[in-house]
C-alpha cells in the first residue's frame, strides 16, 4: 500500500496532491484517506468503464435475457452470409429494450467467422437520416463503395438502379455474388416513403433468388406490418423477433447489480473487488430495493436503467468512491421529478394568481376555453373580495404575465383560433390539472395565505 503510494503514475499523483490540497480536512480522517489512496488508481477507470457501458451502449459479452432471440437471429444471418440465402425479418420491441444491442452482438459474433468477414457486405440505413428513397439510394451506393461504378449514369427507375448496384457487386473475381446485409433502423419511417419503393425493391430482391441479401428491420412499432402496402407486405417473409422484456423484479435487481459491477479484466483487481462488494451491499439495501422497485414499475428497459445508474455514477467522486443508497435515492428523485411543478415553483405570484383564476374558470365552465379578459375579470373579482397581500395590477401588467405563461406553454391557444384575433380575446386552455396546481401552491415559497385560500375555495 505505502509502496504504491511512493511510486504512483504521474497523473494520479498530482491528482492525489490536488485532492489533498483541495480538502485538507480529509487528511485528518484516516479511513477516508485510506479509501482515497486506492481511489485514485481505480477511480478514473471505473468512471471510464461504467460510462462506456451507460452512455456509449458498449456491448456486453453476452446479452442477458435474450439468448433465444440471439441464437435465432445469428442462425438466420449465418444462412445469408455463408449459404447465400436471402432473408428478411423484423426486430420489434419497445424503445430501449435492446434491439440494436442484440443486433450488434449478433453481428459481432457473426464476424468472428473469417469467411463471413471477407464475404459479407453491410448496409446500415436509418429512417431518421434517409428520409426519402433518393437519399437512401445514394447512401446505399456509398456504403457499397460503388460511387465510381455508378458514375453519372441515369436510371429509369429505382428498381433498375438497385439492380445495377447488386449487379455491380457481382462483377469482380468470382461469379457468385457476395451476400449483402441491409439493416434498416427505425424501420417504420421507411414505410412512410413515397409508395414504399425502397422496401418494395429490397423485399422483392430478397424474394427472388438474385443476389443473396438479408433485410433486417428494427422498429419500436408493434403494428409496423399495418404500415406496409399489400404488395410490399406480400413480399416480406413474416419473420419477426419480438423483444418484450419479461424481466421480473428480482431479475431487474440482479441486472442492476451486474450493470454496476466491474468486469474481471479490470486493471486494478483489488479495487474491482472492493467496488463489486460495495455494489452488492448496495443492492442488498432495503431502500435501494424500493427505489428500484418503483423504477421497475415505471419502465423496465435498459435505457431508463442506464440513465438512473448514470446519475448515481455521476455522484461518485475521488472523495467518495462508492455508491451509497442515498445517491440512488437522489438519482431517482431527479428522474421522477415532475417538471411542471418545478416550473410552477418559479412563477411570480401574479402569474400564480392568474393560473388559479384559470383553474376556477375551468371549474365553473366545465373546462371551456378562456381568454385573457375572462381571467383578468376573475382575478379582479378576487381582488375586490379579499386581497390584503395583492394590489391591483392594471391590464398591461397582467397581460405581460399572461404572455409569459403562454411562452412556458402552461396555457396553449385553442386550435383554429387564428393569430388574427386580438391577443386578449385569444381562447386558451390550461395545460395543468387540479392536483398539480395544488401541489405547486404547497411548495410555493412564502405564498400569501389569502391566495392559498382563494385556490382552495370551491366557488370562483
Amino acid at each position: 500500500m505505502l509502496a504504491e503510494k511512493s511510486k504512483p503514475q504521474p497523473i494520479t499523483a498530482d491528482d492525489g496532491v490536488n485532492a489533498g490540497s483541495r480538502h485538507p480536512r480529509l487528511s485528518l480522517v484516516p479511513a477516508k484517506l485510506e479509501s482515497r489512496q486506492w481511489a485514485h488508481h481505480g477511480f478514473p477507470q471505473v468512471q471510464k468503464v461504467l460510462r462506456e457501458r451507460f452512455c456509449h451502449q458498449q456491448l456486453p459479452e453476452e446479452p442477458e435475457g435474450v439468448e433465444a432471440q440471439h441464437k435465432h437471429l445469428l442462425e438466420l444471418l449465418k444462412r445469408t452470409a455463408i449459404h447465400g440465402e436471402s432473408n428478411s425479418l423484423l426486430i420489434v420491441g419497445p424503445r430501449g429494450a435492446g434491439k440494436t444491442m442484440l443486433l450488434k452482438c449478433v453481428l459481432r459474433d457473426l464476424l468472428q467467422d473469417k469467411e463471413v468477414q471477407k464475404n459479407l457486405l453491410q448496409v446500415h440505413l436509418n429512417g431518421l437520416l434517409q428520409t426519402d428513397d433518393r437519399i437512401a439510394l445514394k447512401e446505399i451506393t456509398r456504403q457499397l463503395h460503388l460511387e465510381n461504378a455508378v458514375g453519372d449514369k441515369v436510371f429509369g427507375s429505382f428498381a433498375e438502379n438497385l439492380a445495377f448496384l447488386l449487379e455491380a457487386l457481382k462483377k469482380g473475381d468470382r461469379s457468385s455474388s457476395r451476400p449483402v446485409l441491409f439493416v434498416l433502423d427505425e424501420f417504420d419511417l421507411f414505410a412512410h416513403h413515397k409508395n414504399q419503393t425502397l422496401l418494395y425493391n429490397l423485399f422483392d430482391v430478397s424474394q427472388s433468388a438474385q443476389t443473396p441479401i438479408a433485410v433486417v428491420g428494427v422498429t419500436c412499432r408493434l403494428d409496423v406490418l399495418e404500415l406496409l402496402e399489400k404488395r410490399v407486405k406480400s413480399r416480406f417473409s413474416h419473420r419477426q423477433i419480438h423483444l418484450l422484456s419479461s424481466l421480473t423484479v428480482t431479475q431487474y435487481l440482479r441486472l442492476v447489480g451486474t450493470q454496476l459491477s466491474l468486469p474481471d479484466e479490470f486493471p486494478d483487481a483489488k479495487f474491482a473487488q472492493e467496488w463489486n462488494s460495495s455494489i452488492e451491499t448496495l443492492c442488498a439495501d432495503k431502500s435501494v430495493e424500493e427505489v428500484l422497485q418503483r423504477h421497475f414499475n415505471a419502465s423496465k428497459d435498459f435505457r431508463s436503467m442506464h440513465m438512473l445508474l448514470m446519475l448515481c455514477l455521476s455522484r461518485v467522486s475521488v472523495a467518495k468512491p462508492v455508491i451509497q443508497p442515498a445517491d440512488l435515492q437522489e438519482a431517482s428523485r431527479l428522474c421522477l421529478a415532475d417538471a411542471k411543478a418545478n416550473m410552477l415553483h418559479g412563477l411570480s405570484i401574479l402569474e400564480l394568481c392568474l393560473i388559479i383564476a384559470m383553474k376556477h374558470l375551468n371549474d365553473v365552465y366545465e373546462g371551456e376555453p378562456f381568454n385573457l379578459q375572462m381571467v383578468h375579470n376573475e382575478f379582479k373579482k378576487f381582488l375586490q373580495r379579499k386581497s390584503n397581500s395583492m394590489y391591483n395590477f392594471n391590464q398591461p401588467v397582467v397581460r405581460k404575465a399572461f404572455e409569459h405563461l403562454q411562452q412556458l406553454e402552461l396555457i396553449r391557444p385553442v386550435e383554429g383560433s387564428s393569430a388574427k384575433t386580438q391577443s386578449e380575446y385569444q381562447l386558451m386552455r390550461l395545460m395543468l390539472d387540479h392536483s398539480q396546481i395544488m401541489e405547486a401552491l404547497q411548495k410555493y415559497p412564502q405564498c400569501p395565505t389569502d391566495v392559498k385560500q382563494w385556490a382552495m375555495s370551491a366557488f370562483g
Partner: protein
Amino acid sequence: MSTSSVSKGCFVFKPSAKKKRTLGLDDYFTDGCEGAETSKIRFKLCQDLWDKIKTETEVLQDELSKKILNSLLDFTMRCSSTHQHSDWASQMRASEIPTAALILGVNVPDHDMTFQSLCELLQQSVTPHVASVQAKECGALKHLMKRVLERLMDTVLAVDDDEEEEAEQTRGQIHKKVHCSLGTLCDWYSTKTKKSSSGTPGKKRTSAVRHEQQQPPLVIIFKDLEAFNPRVLQDFIIICSRYIHRVPLVFIFGIATSPSTIQHMLPHSVSSLLCIELFQSLSCTQHLATVIDKLILTHNFPFKLNNKVMQVLISIFLYHDFSVRNFIKGLQLALLEHFHSQPLSVLCCKKTEAFLNVMQLSNCDLERVRQLGSFRRYVEKQELQEQASLLNDDTYLKEVCKKFVKELHKYHKNYYPVLRCLHTLTSTLPRYPLGKQIRELHLICLEKNVWENEDYQSAMKLLKMLAKDELISLLQRCAEILQPVKSKIMKSALSQLQELLAKFKQLDTAAGETAPSVEDSITSPVKNLQKKTDLFQLQKTLLEMNESRRSKNLSPFEALRNEALEFIDNLVKIHLSPPESQTLYEVCYYSPSATVRRHLNATPRTSIQAALNTPYYYLKNDRLKTEDGLASNAAPDICIAYKLHLECGRLINLYDWLEAYATVVSGAEGNNPGSDNYVKVDEVKHARFIRAVSELEFLGFIKSTKQKTDHVARLTWGGC
C-alpha cells in the same frame, strides 16, 4: 384570314406589321378632342403647367417632411454614437435595439415619397447601409432575412468603386451560397468597416466624424409595420438582438395607425428588446392645407377649379382617403380634362402667351367665344352697334378678348390677397362664421357673392366688436399679406391700410385716458362671447349690443374701427366677386364636376345596374331606346335576363326564366306569335340564356342554391 377547323381550337393571329404604329402622348390627347387644330398648343400648355405643378408639389413635400426627417437623422446618429458607449447605465441598455416608430397617418399611398427621401437623406448624411422592406415581400422569416441582407450589401455595392466591386461581387456569390444569416452580415460588416477605416487614414478628421465613418449604423426600415406577420417580425427582432453587440443595427418602423400597435403585435418578451422612440409626422389635413395654399390659392397657375369641382376633390379627401397624392392626381385629371375638352383653353396661360394665342384664334374659335355664357351676358349689357361689332368684327373681338384676359389675370392677382386678408380677420372669430380653414372661405367666395352671405354679415358684426389691440394685430397681419403683392390696386390698398393703422397708433397716443373705459365696456362682451358657443346666445348678445351702440355716441376708436371695416368690406366687394362675374372665365375655370366625380369616385354597382337597365346609356343604339319599364327585346341577352329576374322572388325557377326569355327573344326575331316554332327553345337560345345567367352569377346578382332543385337565389332585392 379564316380558319376552318373541326376541333374548337384557339388561333393566334399576329397583328400585321403595317398596322403597328406607336402613338405619342399628344396623339392620344388630340384624337377625339374638339378644336383639333389648336390641340397641339393646348397639349403643350397643359404639359408645361403640369410640370410646374409637379415640381412645386415635390418641393412642398420635401420641406414639409424636412423637420421629421431631420429628427430621425440625428436619432440614428445618436444611436450609432452611443452604440460604443460604455458608461454604467448604458451597459444595461446594450442589448436593446434602437428603434424609431414613425407615425405617418392612414394614407398609406403617400408614405412612399417620405421613405424615398428618408432613404436618400440617410445615405447621404449618416450611413451607406440602409435597407427598407415591405410586408408583402417577406412572408416568411427567411425571405425577410434574405431581403435585408441583399439590400444592405447591395447598397454598399452601389456606392463602392470598381475594383472593390469585384471583391464584393465574389463575396456576394459566396453569401448566396452560404445561406444568409446575420452571422455572415456581421463578418461582412466587420470587413467593410475595417476596409473603410484603413481606406481613409491620411485624411484629417475630428475623432467623432472618423468614429462615425468607422461604425456607420445599419438601418432597417419596415415600411408598413401593420401588414407584417407578427411571428416573422418577432423572430427577426430576437435574432437581431443577439447580434446587436457586434453590429449597430437601427430599426425604423413605418406605422400608419398608432404606436400602440407595436404593443399589440409584439409580446413583451420581444418588445423588451427594443428601445423605441416616437416620431409623429404632421397630419395629412395640415398637409392638404399647405398644398391648397400653394397650388390653388395662387395666381401663378392660370388654371382654376370652380366651386363644384373643388368641392368634389376636397370631399373625396375628407370622406374617403386622406391622401394628398390622390388630391393632386384629381387636380391633374381636371387639368387634362380642361385642356382636352375646352378649345378656348389656349388662352389659359401666361398673359403674354395668351395675347399671342388670342391673335392666333381661328374664326371658329371666335365663334366659340361668342357662344360663351359670360361673353353673351357681357354683350347684352352693351349698346347695339357695340354688340354688332362684337358679334361680327373678328379683329375687334380679338382686341376685346385681350382686354378680358388681362382683366382675368388682374382679378386673380387681387382675389387671393384679399381672400387671405378676410380669412385672417374672420378665422379667429368665435364659432368661425366663415370657416376655420381658408379653403372653406374660398369655396364660399367661389359659390356666390360672399358679402350677401349672412354668415359674412355676422362676421362683420363680430369684427365691429373687436377690442383695439386685437383689431390692430389683425390689420397688421393683413398689411403683411398685402406687402409682397405687386399690383397697383393692392399697393394702394396697402397704403390705405397703413394710414388706418397709423391713425390707430396716434389715437392711443392722443386720447389714452378715455380709451380704456370704452374699450373694456366694448371688449368685455366679445371676451365672454369667446366662451359661450351657443348660436342663439350669440345672436341675442349681438342684437342687444347693436341697441347699446345706437344709444351711445361713437367713441373715436369705434369710428375709426368702423372706417377700417368699411375699407375691408369695400375690398371684399370689389375683389371677391365669384369668377362667374368675370367675362371669359370659362377659359381658366374647369366646371364639369360630374366628370371628375365619375373618374375619381367610381360607382361600379350603379353603373352596372344602369347598363343592365338601360343598355342605350352605354351602347348608343337607337333600337335600344325604350320607354323604361319593359325590356327592349333587341337588348343584349344579359339585359333581358336581368330584367326578367327582377320580376322574380328570392328563388328563381330556371325553367320559367328560360321560357320567359325565349318568348322575349323570339319576339325580337319577329316570327309571329301564331306560328308553332314560336317560343320553342332551340339550343341556340338555350345556350345564350345559359351564358346570360352565368354572366349574372358572375356579376353577383344570383347564386346557385341547394334549397330547391332547378332554382337559383337572388342576391339583390327590390324589383321593377
